[in-house]
């Protein structure tokens, strides 16, 4: 298994400079609000799937509660902007901080659990956050949602069309990917991978396993919170329905289809799955089914996704062999 394939090629300027240039010029060429809106949506999902990749892909902690933190970030920004007139350059970091702190609160009791049990408990938290959002009417206005969130404004200029949002989300994408690339190139990033590959060995070489896991969870949830703040200022309306378990599955599908454990994997997955249904009217109608079917096919036939590291979802527990592991007719791993 190519252990070091995580090394992001962020230093390969010949690849990313032309891509970035093309992305910068995109709104100058394409003026359709609809296409720019699709691009902005893709940008939001790039942040969400890339941040989920930190826990699920790099560290091997299967979190199924990402949409909850996305929602916590969105609600934080929405409440601060509508009730306390906080400017957007403050709501973004504050949304990240609140989501990250909720991440700590959930990580501390749950990260003892491994593999599927961690996945299940995060599903439980996801549903609890959703139900509390729906019922805590004095804070969240419950099922009515929070409307009229002001668009971002800098020095008297208020965001209007999707082109402004496009450049903001592009900036956020560059920041998030740069941050992830730097983290993964550092001691901390190597500790994440070590924990995924073999927790006991990681412990043995002196990695503080539990704090590192919590750190991984916090970074991922804080980034999801920032994505939520962007969503709130872009959609200008938040309601609990946008942050359900289904949304976590959409993000997870993007991550798995793109590939876990690499920098480009979740980016490819998010862009591909946001654009794919828009290709035809026919597919828009069947968006969810298409996602579900693609998830099934990818797990069956290419579990590492388009550009992921093989073996992440196929080896959750190393100590206990699952039943059937020794059946003669079972396919060899």
């Amino acid at each position, binding site marked *: 298994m190519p252990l070091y394939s995580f090394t992001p090629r962020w230093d390969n300027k010949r690849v990313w400079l032309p891509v970035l240039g093309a992305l910068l010029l995109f709104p100058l060429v394409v003026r359709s609000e609809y296409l720019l809106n699709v691009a902005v949506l893709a940008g939001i999902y790039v942040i969400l799937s890339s941040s989920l990749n930190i826990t699920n892909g790099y560290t091997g902690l*299967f979190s199924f509660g990402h949409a909850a933190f996305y929602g916590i970030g969105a609600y934080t920004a929405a409440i601060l902007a509508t009730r306390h007139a906080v400017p957007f350059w403050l709501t973004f970091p504050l949304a990240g901080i609140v989501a990250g702190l909720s991440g700590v609160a959930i990580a501390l*009791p*749950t990260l*003892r*659990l*491994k*593999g*599927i*049990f961690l*996945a*299940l*408990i995060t*599903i*439980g*938290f996801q*549903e*609890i956050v959703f*139900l*509390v959002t*729906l*019922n805590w009417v004095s804070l969240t206005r*419950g099922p009515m949602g929070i409307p009229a969130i002001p668009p971002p404004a800098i020095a008297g200029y208020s965001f209007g069309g999707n082109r402004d949002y496009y450049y903001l989300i592009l900036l956020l994408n560059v920041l998030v990917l740069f941050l992830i690339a730097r983290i993964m190139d550092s001691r901390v990033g190597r500790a994440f991978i070590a924990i995924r590959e073999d927790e006991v060995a990681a412990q043995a070489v002196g990695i503080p396993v539990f704090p590192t896991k919590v750190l991984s969870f916090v970074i991922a949830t804080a980034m999801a919170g920032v994505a939520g703040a962007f969503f709130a200022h872009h959609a200008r309306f938040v309601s609990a329905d946008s942050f359900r*378990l*289904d949304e976590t*599955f959409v993000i*997870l*599908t993007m991550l*798995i289809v793109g590939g876990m454990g690499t920098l480009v994997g979740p980016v490819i997955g998010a862009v591909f799955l946001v654009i794919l249904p828009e290709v035809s009217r026919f597919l828009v*109608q*069947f968006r*969810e*089914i298409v*996602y*579900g*079917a*693609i*998830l*099934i096919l990818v*797990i*069956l036939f290419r*579990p590492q996704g388009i550009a992921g590291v093989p073996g992440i*979802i*196929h*080896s*959750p*527990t190393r*100590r*206990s062999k*699952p*039943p*059937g*592991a*020794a*059946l003669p*007719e*079972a*396919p060899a*791993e």
Partner: protein
Amino acid sequence: MLLQQVVNGLTQGSLYALVAIGFVIIFGTMNLVTFAHGEVYMVGAFMGYFALSWWHLPWPVALLLGMAAGWILGVLTEKVAFRPMRTLGHMPPLLITIGISIVLKEAVVILLGAENRPVPSIYEQTIQVWGSQVSVLQFVILGIVVLLIVALQLLIQATKIGRAMRATAQDHEAAYAMGVNADRVFNIAFALASCLGGAAGVLVGIYYNAVYATMGGMAGLKGFAACIFGGLTSIPGAILGALIIGVVENLTVQFIASGYRDIIAFLVMVLVLIVRPQGLLGSKMRVV
């Protein structure tokens, strides 16, 4: 009033129990978790709806049709999602069944719409028990659930395939060495679990007089919460867990707020996993 809420809770809990037992059978024999169980329940409920509302069949036939639909779905899910993945750990079957659950749910939404479908009610009479109104239907449902659980126990304890299932659950390699066809046992176990899920769906449709495409998600998660509460591999534990969740939910509606009823199952699930991962009646196992 309190008694009425407890009876409501027990009826509801008994339906969660059917779903939870399915998770126990699957986890007990295969050590794997399915996420499509809620959708099997939904398909069973729709089968019951077709039988009762469209074809005007008697309810026992509807129940059998729902169970048959569950059985078929279980056989297929096991073949597609579990058999090729059995050596590869917990995660791939869970992820595939997430895909299956999305596809089944959305297919029903597209084909039949997302709105509630009315199911004709049966046994509408109520009787007085210690000053509370209790409907006959609740006793019928509790009776059917008890009957199904007894039948399951007989199947597991007293038949050849039941013995094969118990042997496979204990040690599938040893069972294989003794000539048990493990693939067939896994398939039947999965089908059996799904069959109970389908039965629960039909009964829920009759109980609430409605079926809808998204009914499976919450039911599946609650059944799973009951299964964790009871200890993952213990059928009595799952039944107990489901009944407790059902009763506490109804008391929450009575004494706290109806909006928070659904949160009980998830609080139970989270607390049990943190504090006592082996559940009420489960044996110690590695989850940490």
